[in-house]
């Protein structure tokens, strides 16, 4: 039930912010702050509470299930395992920062702004928890539409274009996923006579080889557009650059992660043989993304676009790692999801802070800011170093594990991917040089961080250091999920993996008549 509450509190908070924001302009941000804080504390509590049992073979930690539209076999089924739990923690953490960093930035229609913000978070939470494909698709859309408004209303100059682009890309690819979901639904019904959207029931559906490939591609394209992977990445720079700070933060920190989550949760277990068949191409795409994103990042002059392209590069590592299909790489992927959320999110926050002060995102007009803002310079240094994968910070663990795992799967591609380490150094140092180093050109000094901003960035630094120095809690939490996925593709084969998974299959539900369910 707590899972429903997590979503409910966000949606409720959003509505409250919308309604109460009409009368009192300062109220919505406080409402959102407390809403997200409550959620954050709740997931932290769940993590601490569940940590001892995360070690065991894969099992859902908490789940909630009830009928939604029984005629079509649609259930309201939420459940979390280690992977979902970690991503929920990230969601609420980034969400909290998003609220705090919009504190003074948003000056109009606050109620509606925070409504959108909270509903995006609700959608993301839903995506990370839904175990019913229809419900998943529902949440997938829930996070999309408020984001469209967030970019379209509170963005900068070119916001409408960016919002449309974002919407069309994700919506079009989402529809492909819907088609695949329906395909899976009917194939499963054909095989067994049971009409169901439930993930656990659909697992292990035997699908003819070539159809499986197409269904897999449908899912994959939706997720890969979100991730994003070259050549589907071009919505990202526009959306990131035009979105308000909190929007960029949520896009980079969370929305991109839903793509990776989708691949891990749905694509690999539902379509194992097709995924394995596609793996070399996917890894190649990942490598192309790493290098292409890095080269593009190097030539950008718009700070937010630059960081957006570094995201493309980093997400290439995720793709490479996922389709390496072994434990080391998958652990690295999960780590990369968390650390990329933190480090890139931080860079976007800094871009927002710089824009508030200098009213520009053009790095050619910056330079020498260290002189007046050494504190921000030092913090920027840390995040730039994180982004180039300096050991001791979380990103290093992630990238190293991914490359280490991928090397077992495909040495040559891994060597090409390792070139990304050089390129990342080039663009990260360019950011530092252009923004903070060099001589300061303007006459008026800029203000260094205020305590609210220091708190935001310091919390991010602490988390990225923690992930770099003591990554084991994260690794342990996600271990059962990762081992489950690895088992699908290695030694024991798929049947054993499902057996070991110890899934609580819903035995209580039996088929009565085609398409209808009765709960006994």
């Amino acid at each position, binding site marked *: 039930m707590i899972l429903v509450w997590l979503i409910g509190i966000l949606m409720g908070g959003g509505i409250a912010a919308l309604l109460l924001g009409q009368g009192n302009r300062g109220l919505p941000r406080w409402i959102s702050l407390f809403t997200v804080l409550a959620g954050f504390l709740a997931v932290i509590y769940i993590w601490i509470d569940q940590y001892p049992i995360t070690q065991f073979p894969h099992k859902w930690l908490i789940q909630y299930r009830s009928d939604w539209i029984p005629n079509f076999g649609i259930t309201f089924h939420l459940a979390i395992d280690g992977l979902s739990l970690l991503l929920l923690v990230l969601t609420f953490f980034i969400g909290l920062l998003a609220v705090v960093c919009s504190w003074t930035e948003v000056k109009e229609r606050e109620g509606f702004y925070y409504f959108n913000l909270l509903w995006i978070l609700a959608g993301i939470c839903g995506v990370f928890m839904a175990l019913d494909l229809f419900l998943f698709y529902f949440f997938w859309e829930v996070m999309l539409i408020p984001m469209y408004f967030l970019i379209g209303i509170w963005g900068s100059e070119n916001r409408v274009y960016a919002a449309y682009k974002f919407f069309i890309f994700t919506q079009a690819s989402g529809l492909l996923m819907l088609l695949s979901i329906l395909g899976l639904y009917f194939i499963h019904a054909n095989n067994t006579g049971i009409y169901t959207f439930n993930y656990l029931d659909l697992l292990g559906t035997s699908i003819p080889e070539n159809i499986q490939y197409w269904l897999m591609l449908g899912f994959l394209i939706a997720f890969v557009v979100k991730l994003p992977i070259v050549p589907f990445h071009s919505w990202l720079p526009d959306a990131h650059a035009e979105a308000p700070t909190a929007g960029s933060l949520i896009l980079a920190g969370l929305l991109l992660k839903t793509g990776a989550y989708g691949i891990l949760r749905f694509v690999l277990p539902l379509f194992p043989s097709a995924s394995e068949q596609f793996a070399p191409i996917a890894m190649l795409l990942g490598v192309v993304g790493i290098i292409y994103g890095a080269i593009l990042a190097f030539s950008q002059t718009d700070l937010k676009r630059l960081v957006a392209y570094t995201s493309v590069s980093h997400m290439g590592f995720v793709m490479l790692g996922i389709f390496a299909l072994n434990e080391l790489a998958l652990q690295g992927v999960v780590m990369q999801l968390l650390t990329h959320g933190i480090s890139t999110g931080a860079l976007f926050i800094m871009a927002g802070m710089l824009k508030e002060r200098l009213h520009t995102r053009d790095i050619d007009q910056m330079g020498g800011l260290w002189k007046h803002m050494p504190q921000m310079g030092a913090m920027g240094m840390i995040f730039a170093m994180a982004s180039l994968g300096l050991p001791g910070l979380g990103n290093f663990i992630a990238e190293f594990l991914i490359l280490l795992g991928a090397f077992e799967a495909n040495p040559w591609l891994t060597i090409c991917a390792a070139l990304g380490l*050089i390129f990342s150094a080039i663009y990260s140092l360019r950011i530092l040089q252009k923004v903070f180093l060099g001589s300061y050109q303007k006459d008026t000094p800029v203000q260094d961080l205020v305590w609210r901003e220091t708190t935001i960035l310091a919390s991010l630094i602490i988390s990225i250091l923690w992930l770099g120095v003591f990554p084991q809690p994260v690794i342990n939490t996600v271990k059962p999920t990762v081992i489950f996925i690895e088992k699908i593709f290695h030694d024991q084969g798929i049947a054993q993996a499902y057996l070991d998974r110890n899934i609580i299959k819903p035995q209580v539900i039996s088929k009565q008549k085609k398409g209808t369910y009765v709960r006994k």
Partner: protein
Amino acid sequence: MNNLLWLIPVLPLLGFLILSLAGKSLSKTSIALIGVGSVSLSALITILIGLNFLNDPPAAGFISQTLYTWIEIGNFKPEITFLLDPLSLVFVFVITFIGALIHVYSAGFMKGDKDYSRFFASMNLFVFSMLVLVLADNLLLLYLGWEGVGLCSYLLIGFWYENPQNGYAARKAFIMTRIGDTAMAIALFMIFSWFASLQISDILLKAPQLFQQGDTTITIIALLLLAGGIGKSAQLPLQNWLPDAMAGPSPVSALIHAATMVTAGVYLIARMNVIFELAPIAQMTVAIIGAATLLIAGFSACTQYDIKRVLAYSTISQIGYMFLALGLGAWTAAIFHFMIHAFFKALLFLAAGAIIETLHHEHNMFKMGGLKNKMPVIFWTFLIGSASLAALPLISAGFYSKDPILWYAWSAEKGNMIFWAIALLGAFITAAYTCRMVIVTFWGSSKTEIGHMPGSLMTTPLLVLAFFSVVAGFIELPHNFGHFTLFSDFLHPVLPEVTMGNETWPEWIFQLMASLATFGGIYISYQLYSKNPALILRLKQSSLATALYQFWFLGWGFDRLYDILFVKPLTYLSNINKNDIVDQIYSGISFISIKLYRLLSYTQSGSLRWYAMGLLLGAIIILTIQIVT
């Protein structure tokens, strides 16, 4: 005592944390106390543990201390473990001891700088990273230190950030070493996939069982590790970042770009000696790279006029000697040369820094001159350092460390006459440029006003280092000088003995030749720069000499070459694609749909009569089709 090991790296880390978090609110005195104190305490603990190690050697041959398990995924289980064996003890000693001296010097050198705490924070972080590098018991932790020192080098080269030139030098250093680092990372992946472990002791133990001598895999691994070492140690072909790195403050050049960080490559290769012994091709490559580097860097050093760049090229050249020794299998000789080099090169850089500071930031040594009597302490210490660098026979430590390398270059199994000839030529050049530097700086007429003289904070470290630059050589004497081999005996548990092979002349002839080379170099310089300056003018008139001079001055054109080969094409590619060609495809799709929409919208003209016309035409066409068919 031994379980204080973890404090050696952690103390500087603590210093870094305090200085970076609270640096702004501390007074300069307390900043200096923390910065210098943390490293000095480390040095003290090192000496205590080292004495303990010597008096009462541990049964296993090493001390190790595990703090916690860093990552544990399946059989991938790197721990945060510090391991002290003779090899790392030598490095730790050099790092902490020379590090502490340089910190003391910096307290005086940097006292006028507004970013005092940032400087000491970065220096402490560097010492921490370097200690992690040499104390790591697994390659992942080593890699952490390895990258950490790269970061600190970047931070400190670009310390005076307001000048974009410094930022450029810093980035160049970071990126060029990063190229090597990436190769090393790939080596790590390969090692893990073959050995299923990154534990150094495991790898060294398993390697001879897994591989035959000369196997391709082990050769590739060795070459990749070598690439890592080349980047960090500024060897051919990744050497050209080091001269630019002199943009940093002089203590930084002394500590990072002479004494410690740049020798990380030497450490890595020595540490992985088993792998290199198994891969003769790779080891031969090490020797060839070392020989080539020592020669070309030596020629470049002859042409520089910036005193720090002379020293930088000479550093590259001396590390070339170490690589040569490593390639010959003369492991202990390489490490010995590393230690001696650390003493005298740190000394030279510090002294040069003091001169530059006194002469109001004048780097050009041709504008110095006549400092012999004005700065006696600096003069004498610099002279001792130079003697060591030039390997002045018998009295300088440099002689005792370089002479074995020259001897092994031919007499070792892997050596040959060419290596020896190159090394000998290198020794000649070294003596020549060293002497040139000393003459030009200290003799002749004074050309620049002398400012504030260095205080005792700066001169004391110089005196200590000068003492070691003379005395440290006597702990390892050549075979015919009584065969006193304290240093190599100490290292032999970890590093194998050099295998002798080639029948050559007796060792004393080699020593004589080396001495002659040194004196020859000194004599040539003396003739050119003191006795007979007209000769230089004559040389300057010949076009070949000036062309050669330019070529060497610019470091054999490597910068130009890389600029044309890599930098230009990459930036060009990146800039023409600034707007992302892939995005153009999507823009194309939207462009086409907009065009189509415009086209179709023409039919909706709003003119009723056109619609009627259309209706009619349509009806006629349909009717015609009906009738015809």
